[in-house]
């Protein structure tokens, strides 16, 4: 009586591994698959926004609405690719690209002043007024050599964020 832990074949696992540049081990993929099935309550092959929100820890995250746009309706392969940016072995570029995507809500490859303001609004909620936020952001952008009208590209993000202190790592629990 094998426990019904996984219906993934060796082939499936290797296929998924290839997709995520072998950032996850086979065991991690099995474990992620179990989690995927758990979240995909109705077993339709993808995870809906509502199912993501059924995890309260995710739902209370200030960026959850933004992330939902990125993760709504992910199938297993995309689910793994999304999470691979959080792998300790993932490149800095991959991590920064993910951060960039969170800011770039219209996916035009540019992050404007307003994009940043919106994320800040999500993060600080009602604790700060828009004016306070704007002042701070203008000041900080000027210090870094940008103006209010400049839009930031991925390269700019890399320049700004590439730093060994940037830690964005999530361990996949393997039992």
């Amino acid at each position: 009586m094998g426990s019904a832990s996984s219906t993934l074949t060796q082939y499936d696992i290797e296929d998924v591994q290839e997709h995520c540049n072998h950032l996850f081990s086979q065991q991690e993929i099995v474990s992620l698959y179990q989690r995927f099935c758990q979240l995909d309550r109705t077993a339709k092959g993808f995870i809906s926004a509502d199912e993501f929100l059924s995890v309260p820890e995710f739902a209370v995250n200030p960026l959850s609405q933004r992330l939902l746009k990125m993760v709504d309706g992910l199938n297993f392969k995309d689910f793994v690719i999304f999470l691979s940016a959080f792998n300790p072995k993932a490149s800095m570029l991959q991590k920064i690209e993910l951060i960039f995507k969170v800011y770039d809500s219209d996916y035009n490859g540019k992050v404007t002043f307003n994009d940043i303001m919106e994320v800040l609004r999500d993060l600080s909620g009602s604790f700060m007024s828009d004016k306070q936020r704007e002042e701070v952001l203008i000041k900080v952008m000027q210090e870094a050599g940008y103006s209010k009208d400049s839009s930031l590209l991925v390269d700019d993000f890399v320049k700004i964020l590439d730093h060994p202190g940037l830690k964005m790592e999530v361990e996949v629990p393997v039992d």
Partner: protein
Amino acid sequence: MVNSQDFKNSIPLSSISTPERGTKMSKLTSSSSELDLDRPNIEDYLPSDSIPQPHAKLRLRDLLDISPTLTEAAGAIVDDSFTRCFKSNPPEPWNWNIYLFPLWCLGVVVRYGILFPGRVLVLTIGWIIFLSCYIPVHLLLKGHDKLRKRLERALVELICSFFVASWTGVVKYHGPRPCARPKQVFVANHTSMIDFIVLEQMTAFAVIMQKHPGWVGLLQSTILDSLGCIWFNRSEAKDREIVARKLREHVEGADNNPLLIFPEGTCVNNQFTVMFKKGAFELGSTVCPIAIKYNKIFVDAFWNSKKQSFTTHLLQLMTSWAVVCDVWYLEPQNMKPGETPIEFAERVRDIISVRAGLKKVPWDGYLKYSRPSPKHRERK
């Protein structure tokens, strides 16, 4: 350069200059006091990392770096403490070995072929005895309220003992047996409806339960009603007030059955405790905690009500070797001066969690049925 250590610990907004932080903090306290008091402040439970720390100088990098928040979100997607509370734990398979496998098969034959029919028989006999006594007592002794109540109480205890016997319940009770006394309520952690049966076999408690459909509902509205049990419908807001009023009346009454409340409001898998509802703790009466711990050696007693009906849950228990559990009646607790009902509830939850060896998680069990409101998100 910014020191990488405190850089890591800071979240983007941590670096706002001090006066602004001051107002931030005061806003935080004032907003949390207006909140729906039923929900304790989630911030209290969050790891200290996520609480802003002062920072030397704000840089664009610090503002743009949303990695801690993203990490938290991804962490929640990969694994979260809430889902773990409601995960059934299938027993470890041990039949992998060529020697053990025949033994296991033999066990299956014994469990399903001998134990199960025997238990069904026991349960049927129990029901026959129960009903043949209960119906006459209930109908004939209309005039003698006291006697009728006493007999009905004894009969419900009897049928519960039959239930426990039908899964060969090996229950160890620790501590003094509860007695009926006004102004006291019993609270216990909740794993399955069988908690109620296990406790009921010793003392006829009046319980607050959700209204169930099917045969359980029928039992609720007929037999358990005579014990003074109170029913509610989770989804109906109006029921809340009615239940609160009935609760008060019940606690005040002198010869009512002792009241039992499962303040978690939902079944948890007996490894965690979710937040306690404050209702039981603001009655101004003594709270007697009861800790229930199931031994998972033969069967997982957690009733995953989303996956199985109560009948299948009972069948699962009846086809297992035994249900082993410990029940501790703990020291009665009173609200300390200056303590809010929520703090009191948390204190009692601590006592139960420690005794039963459960981990505490800061989630409201009702999140199983609804999604957190945007208000919560904003507060974080």
